[in-house]
């Protein structure tokens, strides 16, 4: 099994008529994802390579039975696009767009939780989600992942997500689902949301978790693992040598005053029984050991 998505997930792409949306929408369809619709109020009635375009997510849901949406709308429109998707009736929203203001993120996170408690938002600023062989929503290159299981992956960093998938494929280890939650200040889906889902998924036997400096999401995940997870976890945290107070790239990676350091996160995870690697390769090796002992 997979978490959040599977082969029956029907996806509407908000922004399918734009260059990014079209490019990745087509790649996702090629991979086997059910890409059932796109939206653009000005181009309703037209199609993109056979995929019908509707004026709104609500129309797309009514006509195609879409259950998820994928957002490639530029940052200024993301807040509106997310609310349109939730009001339109999809249950899972993947927002790929980067550069969304933190105040917008804080607003729609709380708005969804209050008015649409059954809607799960992934992102913004994330690579998306892939359940190898079943469904790929977002910008992950599908062929770097091996299908099957027994490992679930959750990651805060885009390229390190790919690195993790690839490390496991090299070792012939399959993945049930790989979730890129993104590194923004208020991610719609947290490590804990994914860990809980992986714990409940019978086909996932172990979890690989990739974190980075900044915030306290890894420490909270460690606390959750300690008390609520029976499945083994391996981990890697990027940014061990990042100087305090410097923001490294556009990810939400900023260290201030000794809090949120890689060391603090690794210590917390180690305390929770997680096998922590010092680099992505080591984390992959540790996962291979875990899988061999299952």
């Amino acid at each position: 099994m997979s978490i959040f998505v599977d082969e029956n997930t029907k996806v509407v792409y908000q922004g399918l008529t734009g260059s990014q949306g079209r490019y990745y929408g087509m790649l996702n369809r090629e991979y086997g994802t059910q890409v059932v619709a796109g939206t653009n109020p000005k181009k309703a009635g037209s199609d993109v390579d056979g995929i019908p375009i509707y004026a709104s997510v609500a129309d797309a849901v009514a006509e195609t039975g879409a259950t998820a949406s994928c957002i490639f709308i530029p940052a200024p429109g993301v807040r509106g696009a997310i609310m349109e998707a939730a009001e339109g009736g999809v249950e899972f929203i993947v927002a790929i767009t980067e550069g969304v203001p933190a105040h917008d993120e804080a607003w729609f996170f709380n708005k969804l939780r209050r008015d649409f408690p059954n809607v799960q938002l992934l992102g913004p600023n994330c690579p998306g989600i892939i359940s190898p062989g079943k469904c790929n929503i977002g910008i992950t290159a599908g062929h770097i992942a091996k299908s099957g299981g027994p490992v679930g992956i959750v990651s805060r960093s885009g390229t390190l997500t790919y690195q993790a998938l690839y490390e496991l494929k090299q070792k012939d280890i399959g993945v049930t689902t790989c979730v890129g939650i993104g590194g923004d200040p208020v991610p719609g889906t947290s490590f804990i949301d994914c860990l809980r889902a992986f714990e409940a998924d019978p086909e996932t036997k172990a979890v690989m978790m990739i974190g980075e400096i900044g915030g306290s999401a890894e420490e909270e995940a460690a606390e959750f693992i300690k008390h609520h997870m029976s499945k083994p976890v391996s981990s890697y945290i990027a940014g061990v040598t990042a100087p305090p107070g410097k923001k490294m790239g556009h990810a939400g990676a900023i260290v201030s005053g000794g809090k949120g350091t890689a060391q603090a996160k690794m210590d917390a995870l180690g305390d929770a029984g997680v096998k922590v690697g010092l680099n992505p390769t080591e984390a992959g090796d540790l996962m291979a050991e875990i899988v061999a002992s299952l």
Partner: protein
Amino acid sequence: MDLFEYQGKQFFATYGMPISPGEVAFTVDEAVGAAERIGTPVMVKAQVHTGGRGKAGGVKFAATVDDVREHAGNILGLDIRGHIVKRVWIEKASDIAEEYYASFTLDRSAKKHLGMLSAEGGVEIEAVAEQNPDAIAKIWVDPVDGLTEEAARAWVEAANLNPDATEGAIDILVKLYRAYVEGDADLCEINPLIFTPDKRVHVLDAKVTLDGNSEFRHNDYAQFDETQPRDERESAAHEKGLQYVGLEGSVGVIANGAGLAMSTVDVVNQVGGAAANFLDIGGGANADVMAGALEVINNDPDVKAIFINIFGGITRGEEVANGIVEAMDRVQIEAPIVIRLDGTNADEGRAILQPHLSNALQMEDTMLDAARRAVELAS
């Protein structure tokens, strides 16, 4: 984006918060002129993007215009934690009865806005936070609801300010929240927020960090971007649109993706070296971007070897390899380069690089081996 104190105050003033009359000055003569217009006594305050100004001698009281001349002369050009003072803020001096602390920031863990208010403001607020956390009254504001006056009142009462400061504090905090939200700030902090002998609540300092992602709806924020402190290397990278952070080591790092770039810096360190920088060239790795990145690194005299770490996802290995080859034709590189290319079509990419390999351009299969090689070449 961090604002200077005076920019922060001017930002607060647009939301109706009370600030003291003042002027920014870039020279001693300008400072004196400002003081004459404002009327002494004044404060002469260094404008730098760092804390600890007072302890470094960057904040002085001036009773007379002669004092202003002396202090401005000393403060302009002063090095405060590596920041050279290029401008001072001349502000009407205030009488202070009590010093408070007030701020709004995002609590990433609670996913709500966090307001903090304390009757024990001033320079020691961090010590207060550590030793006596109860002295800081906190309020979590749901962004959907915003901060109501009623909630602000309960919050102020919990902070045990002087009872006569209550109404003035509520007024400022409601405005501060508006400035924080409407201005798309990551941080709005007033320390100290003062209560004067004539019972007014007044903004005496301002620390504001704005969210660069919100520039699309704040056309005026470009002015703040220009005054961000960057070393030469960082400025050059910024102009090319590259995500660059200067570090102290000798191995130049180029990687695609922030996480991988951070990880590369870590690995260089783990094998006994030190990175000269963090440079994220983003998802694609075409010749233009690669050439720009190499130019930036090339201009850093401390760089003795360059480690290019690329993981191809959607971007295929051969595109990356062609980009590197083309970029190397365009930029005269001083230091030897070690490449690790993995991911989508890595074999095809490596085949393209193969005929170009030499002492100046080497290739390793794994991230760790490439890091070891680069560190070896740098030492």
